[in-house]
């Protein structure tokens, strides 16, 4: 198992108990209506929010066990997130955005540049390297965010509503791109979505929150 969670997530009236695990190569779709806490799961696995109780572990490290005070900070977890609001860094261009994670891990500027270029090619954004996020369309930004998460070669890829902020035309294109990209992704993927079509096109398993 690449990632396994068994505990309660969220706070107060939004707290819910979950148990699931995802293996390498799997794409788990977490579905449910808006407000059912799907994003919280992503944030908890990424380490931005702690578990209420239980444990969260990857195959090579224990990430969060509140009762025994075990905690791994987000920057030390081998996962990468594509946020629902994308969160591309506005003061950096595309290539700098994509290279950010590699540079944070100590990769040299040149190597980070070439690896980022390669990943941008895979998502079809090769000629956009020096553009700023503000100059891109919704669909283009989504691809850059995806590239930024893939380039660090995480064990766990977390996608929060990857097709929600995109227009219909780009959606169709992305719905084709994602399975292709995820197909060659070696780790586990957790995909949060409320759209049934996305689920069927992309996921290998699903977990419903109702």
């Amino acid at each position, binding site marked *: 198992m690449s990632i396994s969670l068994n505990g309660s997530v969220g706070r107060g009236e939004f707290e819910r108990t979950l148990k699931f695990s995802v293996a390498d190569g799997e794409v788990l779709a977490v579905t449910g209506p808006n407000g059912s806490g799907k994003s919280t799961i992503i944030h908890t696995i*990424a*380490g*931005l929010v702690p578990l209420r109780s239980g444990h969260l572990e990857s195959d090579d490290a224990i990430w969060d066990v509140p009762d025994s005070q075990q905690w791994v*900070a*987000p*920057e*030390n*977890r081998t*996962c*990468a*997130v594509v*946020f629902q*609001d994308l*969160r591309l*860094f*506005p*003061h950096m261009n595309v290539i700098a955005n994509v290279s*950010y*994670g590699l540079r*944070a*891990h100590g990769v040299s500027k040149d190597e980070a540049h070439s690896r980022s270029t390669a990943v941008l090619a895979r998502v079809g954004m090769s000629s956009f390297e020096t553009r700023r996020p503000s100059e891109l369309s919704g669909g283009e930004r989504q691809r850059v965010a995806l590239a*930024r998460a893939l380039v*660090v070669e995480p064990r766990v890829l977390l996608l929060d509503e990857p097709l929600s902020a995109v227009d219909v035309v780009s959606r169709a294109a992305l719905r084709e791109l994602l399975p292709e990209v995820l197909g060659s992704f070696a780790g586990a993927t957790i995909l949060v979505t409320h759209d049934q079509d996305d689920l069927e096109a992309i996921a290998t398993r699903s977990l419903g929150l109702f």
Partner: protein
Amino acid sequence: MKSQRVSPALKVVAFIAAIFVALPLLSIFVRVPWSDLGEMLSQKSTREALLISLQTSIIAATISCIFGVPLAWFLARSSTKWLSVLRVICITPMVLPPVVGGIALLTAFGRRGILGQYLYDWFNVSLPFTRTAVVMAQVFVAMPFLVLAVEAAFRQSDRGLEEAARTMGASPSRVFFTIALPAARPAIIAGLALAWARSLGEFGASITFAGSFPGRTQTLPMAVYELVSVDYRLSLVLSLVLVFISVGVLAAMRDRWMAGR
């Protein structure tokens, strides 16, 4: 675009307020001895005071930035119980009468001061009446301006971006330098300009803690003060220089400050 109609009564009140502030400033322009301006500006005492003012204020603004930005970050991001108390303390010099600030500095760092006595007894370091003291006085009164401006920016900054950076593997300090700091750049520049302008105009704390000696610790405002009763015309000239610099700083910042963010 149709401009909004302002009531005549409001216009009168606004006019009076504007005149009250503008008239004294314009009067300096009117009464300055323009024909002797060059000769007075090149006088040794003028040049010395101007040089000391520029040197100390630039150093003070830089120090305010180096220490003030981390302080602003701390105030914006930490959640200790004493945060509001700490914030009030850090901002207090802004509203304190400057001469009181000077007395406070003397009480802390003077030769009999709470910390100063050890500096003097153990290391033979005497801070009052030195140019270092001038810079200290300026930092004391000016840093709060920078801290206030930058803290506001840090508070309003996009935490989501910082979270995203963390998930990419960036440590908190890398997040600070690569994400938070660039985002706060406009506020830092504005804070720096304000801190510099305030340092340049500092008088009460500086003259109390650092004293005044031409060529050593006498800044432009101190020179003006001394000249008022001795050579009024020269004091007008020096005042003009200070007005120019202050107006210049505000004009350069007008896009940020007046037009809003």
